[in-house]
């Protein structure tokens, strides 16, 4: 990232924060309950995963005695995957969706992906806070290991940002990329041990799933939140390296193609 680009983004920080705020407010702008909806929606989701799975279906995780074991396992994966999917999914469309702005106004274009990342992070913060509250109230708070969630999240955000940014630029030139990646994300979800434990799948498939860069990330969350285990940092290194490489690729693509991009929108 060049200094000039960075300076432009800093100069537009007011616009970036304003946009995040506006996007957040726009969702409930004309509703009666207002900001309550931003809590009710994720709350409903957590209730579904916890009450329904734990109490109604009595789903149990092998080796975990707590009645909420599977629920927590599920939330640890689903919520963080949600952040990942939102960032990649919106990242790949970030330039297309703002075509009009890009064509008509001259402003630091890097603002757009930053707005996208921040507003995805905000959505996640709300739902994750609710989930943490649930952990505390139900007596399942993992203790100090909980702190490990944040560096892992950081790593995941870097990975998602790099991927989203690269896809975002490519998608302008090859619209197939967006279509293709919506499909990829669906398969990716099921090829990540989110709904099922890794050791419940067949040997052969397990080795494939282990190659998935999201597997160590999701496993780390599950370990922390279900059993209070500190993550195996070594297993996260490949994903981190891949994330950084993708960020470099994304920035490189962006710098080289930003000018041409406007011609294609």
């Amino acid at each position, binding site marked *: 990232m060049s200094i000039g680009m960075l300076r432009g983004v800093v100069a537009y920080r007011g*616009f970036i924060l*304003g946009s995040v705020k506006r996007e957040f407010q726009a969702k409930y702008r004309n509703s009666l309950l207002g900001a309550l909806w931003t809590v009710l929606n994720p709350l409903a989701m957590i209730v579904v995963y916890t009450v329904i799975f734990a109490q109604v279906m009595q789903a149990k995780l092998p080796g975990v005695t707590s009645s909420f074991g599977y629920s927590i396992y599920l939330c640890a994966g689903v919520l963080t995957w949600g952040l990942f999917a939102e960032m990649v999914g919106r990242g790949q469309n970030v330039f297309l969706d703002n075509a009009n702005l890009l064509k008509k106004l001259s402003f630091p274009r890097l603002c757009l992906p930053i707005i996208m990342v921040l507003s995805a992070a905000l959505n996640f913060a709300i739902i994750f806070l609710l989930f943490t509250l649930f952990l505390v109230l139900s007596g399942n708070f993992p203790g100090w290991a909980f702190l490990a969630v944040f560096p892992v999240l950081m790593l995941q955000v870097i990975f998602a940002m790099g991927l989203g940014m690269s896809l975002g630029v490519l998608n302008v030139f090859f619209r197939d990329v967006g279509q293709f990646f919506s499909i990829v994300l669906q398969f990716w979800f099921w090829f990540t041990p989110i709904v099922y434990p890794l050791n419940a799948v067949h040997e052969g498939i397990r080795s494939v799933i282990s190659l998935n860069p999201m597997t160590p990330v999701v496993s780390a969350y599950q370990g922390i939140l279900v059993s209070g285990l500190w993550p195996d940092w070594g297993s996260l290194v490949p994903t981190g390296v891949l994330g950084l490489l993708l960020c470099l690729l994304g920035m490189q693509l962006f710098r080289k193609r930003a000018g*041409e991009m406007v011609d294609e929108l």
Partner: protein
Amino acid sequence: MGTIQVSSLGKAYKQYRTRWSRLAEWVLPFLGLRHSLKWVLKDISFRVEPGEAVGIIGINGAGKSTLLKLITGTAQPTTGSVQITGRLTALLELGMGFHPDFTGRQNAFMAGQLIGLSGAEITALMPQIEAFAEIGDYIDQPVRVYSSGMQMRLAFSLATAKRPDVLIVDEALSVGDAYFQHKSFERIRQFGQLGTTLLIVSHDRNAIQAICDRAILLDAGHMAREGRPEEVMDFYNALIAERENSTVTQTTLADGRVQTTSGTGEATVEAITLLNERGEPIETAAVGTRVTLRVQVRLHAPVDRLVLGYMIKDRLGQAMYGTNTHHMERPLEDLKAGELVTYHFTFPANFGPGSYSVTTALTSSDNHLLDNYQWRDLALMFTVANIDSRTFVGCNWLEPVIEIVR
């Protein structure tokens, strides 16, 4: 102080034969390029000095918008460069970044930051923005309940809240209703007087001539003409009428003005004279006297229908009065080659003192776009002098009858 320096600017879009060609070019760059370039702008160089106002004209597709995009930096040039000094504001599209569900005030904040104002600046400018937009209480209503004119008012007021060093305007002169159009035009003119460098794209002859010191005509991506607004506008009008077998010529007259003649030549104006009441040729008419414009037209080929139009313009090229024999219901039909037709137009010279020119047009209908036999700017020049009327100012003699009650 704001300047715009455009140096051998060119813009080409890449064209690929198939969608796959681009992929091939990206993936296998060593196999060579697979696109051809479509040039929409080539070799554009000009400089706008501080405080100068330059108009850009050209038919649709001539490259005006692309040029503005390159100058404002939304698109990147293929060749050449643009250098701008000073703070730039571009009125390319108004109301960018407005969200319908938020109030005018909130939107002004967001859109203002988008064009590079800081939050504190907008807060300080807000009363002034509100006052100029004149949309009253609507400022605190969501923008979705605004009429499109109100949206434009707010957007224009916001965009021009702070006087920039360089202002670029793309046909945004027609903002809202007649009242606001006037107001916004006045603001742009004021900026110019205060030293803002202006670059304006417009089809409005009067706007260009009223504001600009210089005009540039773009034609098919090239700079076709650069010069005084009046002369470039004349050339532009002639160019619009250009047909396959018609030609446009511009000759410089003795006084330095440029005369534009175009047309296909089936009929031409052979002589044009201004006569006084006694039928004597004159060059100067007294305010309010009856004068006759005598135009002799020679037919060079058979013509089904002939309409002669004339327009009297002032020194700046602003139209004073124009009509033609179509509107006056006196068209001629079935004319033979070689015929000579003499027209007499008699009218009172109710003009203000000054110099005027007459443009003539020979066509078959009410405009010169269908058939343009001959179009001739500055076909005749005459002056109007105030010899025995009471003193007045302006370009029309509208002497009132005064009745005073006290």
